[in-house]
């Protein structure tokens, strides 16, 4: 491996040279598609540069690379799932209510953000929160809409807010 005094670019270069081919293979085995694999490998190395970690101190560079690559793969899968779910959701809408194609991209992007923000939270909790914020429903309306008690609506709202604030703290610490 490189020594600690090597400038970061060279470290990245060394890392790239010795592991890029391996990473592409690793990804290809999981994705089954070589184009997608080399794209994701590229993104993985970009992330590594972004994080500006000192690679000399990394004992297991491949473990780091696969961790990052795996995260990117999961993101990509989530995005695909959302895109398909979106098509399902709008399938029954009349033409004039369909979001325009240019808005669709913005929409998927925003949904991915929401999806990530609420990851790990019970779907019902998230739905309560979004009905309040996106549809502007009052709690009694939400209770009727979902067939749950007013108290559940209130405690779901509190859970959702708590989750958001925790996410914020986690993010601020990073």
């Amino acid at each position, binding site marked *: 491996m490189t020594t600690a005094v090597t400038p970061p670019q060279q470290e990245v270069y060394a890392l790239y040279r010795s592991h890029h081919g391996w990473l592409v293979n690793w990804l290809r*085995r*999981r*994705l*089954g*598609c070589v184009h997608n694999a080399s794209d994701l490998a590229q993104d993985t190395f970009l992330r590594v540069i972004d994080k500006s970690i000192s690679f000399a101190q990394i004992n297991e560079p491949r473990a780091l690379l696969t961790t990052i690559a795996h995260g990117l793969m999961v993101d990509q899968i*989530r995005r695909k*799932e*959302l895109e*398909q*779910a*979106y098509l*399902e*959701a*709008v399938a029954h*809408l009349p033409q004039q*209510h369909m*979001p*325009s194609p240019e*808005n*669709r991209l*913005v*929409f998927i*992007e*925003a*949904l991915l*953000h*929401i*999806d990530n*923000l609420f990851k790990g939270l019970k*779907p019902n909790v*998230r*739905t309560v929160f*979004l*009905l*309040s*914020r*996106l*549809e502007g*429903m*009052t*709690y*009694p*309306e939400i209770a009727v809409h979902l067939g749950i008690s007013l*108290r559940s609506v*209130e*405690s779901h*709202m*509190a*859970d959702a*807010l*708590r989750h*958001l*604030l925790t*996410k*914020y703290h986690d993010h601020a610490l990073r």
Partner: protein
Amino acid sequence: MNTPSPISANPTVDTENSGITESVDEQLIAWSVKLNSGMASENDMQRFKEWRAQNPAHEVAWQKLYALEQSLYTLPVESKQVAIETLQFADRRRSLSATRRRTLKLLSFAAMTIIGTALLANQYALWQQKIHYATNIGKREQFLLADGTRLMLNTNSKVDVKLSLFKREIVLHGGEIYIESGKDSNSIVGRRSFWVKTEQAELEAIGTRFTVNQQASSTTLHVAQGIVAMHIGHDVPVRAYANETYTMPDAISVPLKMSALNDGLRMDPMAWVDGMLVVKQMRLDEFAAELSRYQDLPLVCEASAGSLIVSGVFQLNRPDPVEHALKAIARTLPVRIREQDDVILISKK
């Protein structure tokens, strides 16, 4: 975390040293829950203002939550209603694929347990759980199987995938598939043999890429790479090599080689994998039959137009591939295309 009921909680300034951040957050949560209920009074608003003014930490916490929530509102207005539904659909997809993953895990666990009696047990179909894959008319979909195999289904196709202890088998019930057989590197018994079963034949893939098309009374095989051995009944298998195409009709026990030379091959058998339909010197009625696989509406080619000859490259990766292809044909051939009684009729001008 122990949560006080947000509505009844009476927010007060927390003077304890420990856990200040958390309890400011809890107070803020209680306020937010109350104020967004749709039942908050002017008085509540006033008291919230006072709470914010009481302590800089309160205002900071509020600003932070406000900013966080703002990031939710980047949704285009018109699609807000769809947002919740989309997320719900996504949840459902995820829980479905999680079940599938669990099943696969369970299967591999079962395989490990039974390894001792494996030789005997392979005869039984107990754990050979079938996984069914299908596509609708006009759709193409790609799947990555547990053994690393890439499976693509063309329009209106159905397969069952059975991965058992010593054998991988894909049963083609209809339609057309493309396969890039996987290395099977996770298998505990080494690389298992790979078979595609159709109505007419059993095809054994030897590390390869190929397509199989199940038609009404025949199977067509095209090998892009590697070797596929064609077994029909108990006859000695015939091997198909790279770039070779064979057809296996009902009631004939030898595969017939097709090529552009003997007039058998008018269509690129691999093009659909890349979302294209490539035909060369094909009769229009044959082409219409091919096209009709990609849509619900039947295509009828009148006898007078049937012998016209089509060559061209047609895109399948578009919303209305059939309509588009027909328009292109109408521009180059003397035909009229019209919709009538729920069929599309192609007739000579």
